[in-house]
């Protein structure tokens, strides 16, 4: 085939050339692949790095808790109950972060608690994400009857008192960490659904969806390969919010006695248990509170970073 002549916009003055001057030399004239651009951007994205570092650190601590913690988190010692942390008057170096109302070592409980809290946060947010995004895609893409049915389900869900539902489920299934994850996940998908549905409604009218249909893509292919990547940005943001939300929900549930069953340490449960003594022994709430706060911030930094790094147009 002879080379074409109408190669109009070959020359100079192209924005992509300005973005990556090295692009032509590396990679056989194709420019940088999306993966290598993402790696480059990740290397210069401080927020992403900080978020990544904190989450990795917490995850490692959670994994290594049995070796790191000085005491058994379940071991009670009523003689040493409510010891303050080392930097407060009356604290001692044996119990760095003090002890709780049953005399259990607070540092050990915090380290073990990271396991439960991370698991609940990511597990519940993922369950909610799958439910909400799937329903949102279906409602937005098909519209009509399917949309009406899903909206009805959503309205029922919004109208139903959460606690009642959760209490019923926990009562039937019995309290355990798995049940808490599933129950929180099952009740936290409204944001995903609303955002996915609204974005899908806009996207399905665009020509690239019509083009995909003209190519012969199936509906599932269009939803998963054409629409979903364009909703990913918003989903990541909601996911990071929901991880924090789920961990806080767990705290609320634990406070009501519906969450993680009592002896198992979790940050939420620790806050709940410390609440009664909040004004007299604030560290009982403050220490797990700070841990939760740092984790949620790190997750948000990570989410924003992932969004920036994978965005097709470079917004720095």
């Amino acid at each position, binding site marked *: *085939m*002879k*080379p*074409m*002549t*109408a*190669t*109009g*916009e*070959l*020359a*100079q*003055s*192209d*924005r*992509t*050339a*300005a*973005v990556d001057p090295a*692009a*032509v030399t590396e*990679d056989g*004239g*194709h*420019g*940088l*692949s*999306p993966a290598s*651009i993402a790696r480059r951007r990740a290397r210069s994205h401080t927020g992403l790095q900080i978020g990544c570092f904190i989450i990795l650190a917490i995850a490692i601590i959670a994994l290594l808790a049995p070796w790191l913690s000085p005491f058994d988190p379940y071991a009670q010692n009523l003689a040493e109950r409510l010891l303050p942390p080392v930097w407060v008057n009356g604290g001692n170096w044996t119990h760095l972060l003090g002890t709780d109302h049953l005399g259990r070592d607070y540092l050990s409980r915090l380290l073990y608690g990271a396991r439960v809290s991370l698991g609940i946060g990511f597990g519940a947010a993922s369950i909610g994400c799958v439910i909400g995004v799937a329903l949102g895609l279906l409602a937005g893409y098909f519209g009509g009857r399917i949309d009406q049915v899903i909206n009805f389900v959503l309205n029922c869900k919004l109208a139903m008192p959460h606690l009642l539902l959760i209490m019923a489920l926990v009562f039937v299934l019995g309290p355990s960490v798995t049940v808490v994850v599933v129950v929180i996940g099952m009740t936290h998908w409204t944001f995903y659904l609303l955002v996915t549905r609204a974005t899908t409604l806009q996207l399905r009218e*665009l*020509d*690239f969806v*019509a*083009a*995909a*249909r*003209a*190519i*012969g*893509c199936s509906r599932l*292919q269009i939803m998963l390969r*054409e629409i979903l*990547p*364009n909703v*990913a940005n918003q989903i990541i943001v909601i996911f990071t919010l929901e991880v924090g939300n789920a961990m806080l929900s767990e705290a609320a549930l634990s406070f009501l006695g519906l969450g993680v069953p009592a002896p198992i340490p979790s940050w939420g449960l620790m806050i709940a248990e410390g609440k009664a003594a909040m004004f007299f022994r604030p560290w009982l709430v403050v220490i797990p509170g700070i841990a939760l706060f740092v984790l949620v911030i790190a997750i948000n930094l990570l989410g924003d970073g992932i969004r920036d790094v994978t965005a*097709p*147009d470079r917004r*720095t």
Partner: protein
Amino acid sequence: MNGGTAQALRVSGLSVSIPLASGTLQAVRNINLVLRPGQTLGVVGESGSGKSITALAIMKLLPPAARRSAGAIRLGSTDLMAADERELAMAVRGKRIGMIFQEPMTSLNPVYTIGRQLIETMTLRGEVSATAAEARAVFLLEKVGLPDPRSRLGQYPHQLSGGQRQRVMIAMALMNEPELLIADEPTTALDVTIQAQILRLLADLQREFGMSMILITHDLGVVARVADRVAVMYAGEIVETGTVAEVLSDPRHPYTRGLLACVPDTGNGENPRRLGSIPGIVPSMIGDTTGCAFASRCPRVVARCRVAHPPRRDLGPERSFLCFDPRTTDANASAVITDNETAVPRIAPGATAAADTILAVRDVSCTFRVRRGFFGRPRPLRAVDHVDLDVRRGEVLALVGESGCGKTTLSRIMLGSQRIDSGDVMLDGTLLSALPDKQRARRIQPIFQDPYSSLNPRRTISEIIAQPLRVHGIGDAASRLAQTERMMDLVGLPRRLFHSYPSQLSGGQRQRAAIARAIIMAPDLLICDEPTSALDVSVQSQILNLLLDLRDELHLTYLFITHNLSIVRYLADRIAVMYFGQIVELGDKHAVLENPRHPYTRALLKSILSITPGAGIPDAGLGADFPNPLDVPRGCRFHPRCPLADDRCRNEVPQPVWLGGAMARCLQAYGDEKC
């Protein structure tokens, strides 16, 4: 400068710079403008050349980060540089300078009545009573040609058509009797028929009220017909200026020449040459730049152009240009920027009369149900009404009509993505609806109007182009890669864009990628729905040339939907004119263009604005705007707008008549006399 003559507006040494993350963008560079009372200045240039920023800078309506500097901006005797924000808001914007924007659909507030919006422009300064303002509003609505103006005051924008809204916008700009009217692409979003009406209206009103006007447009035809003087802008500079007749008939700057060469010839007869084009895009002037901004795209570039900024040369008191090497018209053949195939006239293999039919539309109807309000009874909207149309192998069949006539619905029917109520669509003798999606996809592919929405923003260009192969499971990874690269070469996309995302490409490059995706499976028929109407004229010509080259090379057939008749003349073999869901005229290009039978076709042809300086704005003779598609007129559907309509047309439904190889659906069809 010209001390004795009155000046409505004088701008000297205007520069605008916008700080960006990547450097400072020199959006406007040292511009001088003089506008006399009652004169119209046309400002032309591609998108990104700084036209709109110039207009905004005059009124100090720039984005907050932008910095403006100028020797002087004088409106009459007022110094606009010295005026503070309050003075500008109270006495200048909307009062002495009126402005009309491009998009009539979004420039009116949808929650207020047009009466309120009109009256507010006068009363908000507290100088005029509401009654006086209302009287003025009624007067102006009548002037802009809206029937029954008093009742219009209570209407909301959504109750008006696009053309009507643009009339309201014009009335609004005129409420305070401005001495200067700035119209920024006032007709770009409108149909050709409406465009002519609006332009004529603007010219009439300008004469009547003695206003000066700055008309910003990318359409040289509009400038040629409306403006007295023209300023050609490129990369923030005025590269050539003068009277319209001088600049358009004797262009000196190669950019002006390039723009003129890109416009399809609208004269009758065979199109003798390929369209010219200007390679590349307007460079963004970020940071310090040396030399002539056009050097990288200029066919006559010499070493000096790249190092030194060309001086302004004066040919007369108000005629100047910026170029080192201004050749006059005698060198036109070599000066016009074209592809290197210029010399070879396009050999159109076209469709011979005996060519076989690839796609046959037989008596097809498609009806939508439109429900007004929640409890309203659904009413049928017949978008396509008993249409017969054959697409012959190897031809370019143009489908022409105003927006709302059903041409896009018809194209979607032919693409198989729109259900039909009755009739058959046959692809090579088999029913299109009986074909599995994937088989159909290998034969028919679409190219859409808006290259900004037709590519998935989250996929790279190579993924987008290779998508059909992947979906159909054709070849392995290596062969797909090779095929993708071949397609990119074929449509003229540089390989370094392989991993780029659509947002990093210009409009023309995106449209090339969309074309590459459409042809990668070697389909027989491409359905192009206004593929160039979102592009600059210079890019439009590149895409049109590319489409024609691809047709010759890959033996494609095109259904080309457009409202732009000058493209049709360049591209098409046969033409189908659509009105209100029906094909009203169908025939060979020469038959339809040279001797149109249907009065609607004549009106469309008359609405074309060819580059004829001083020819004035044609009167298409169409009575009103495109009617509400829910209210089908009795008898001939065209009769309310038809200049020939009589009682028969009002009562009798015309049947297709064949006259000399062309079909027309008209009771009064023109005979053989030339148009």
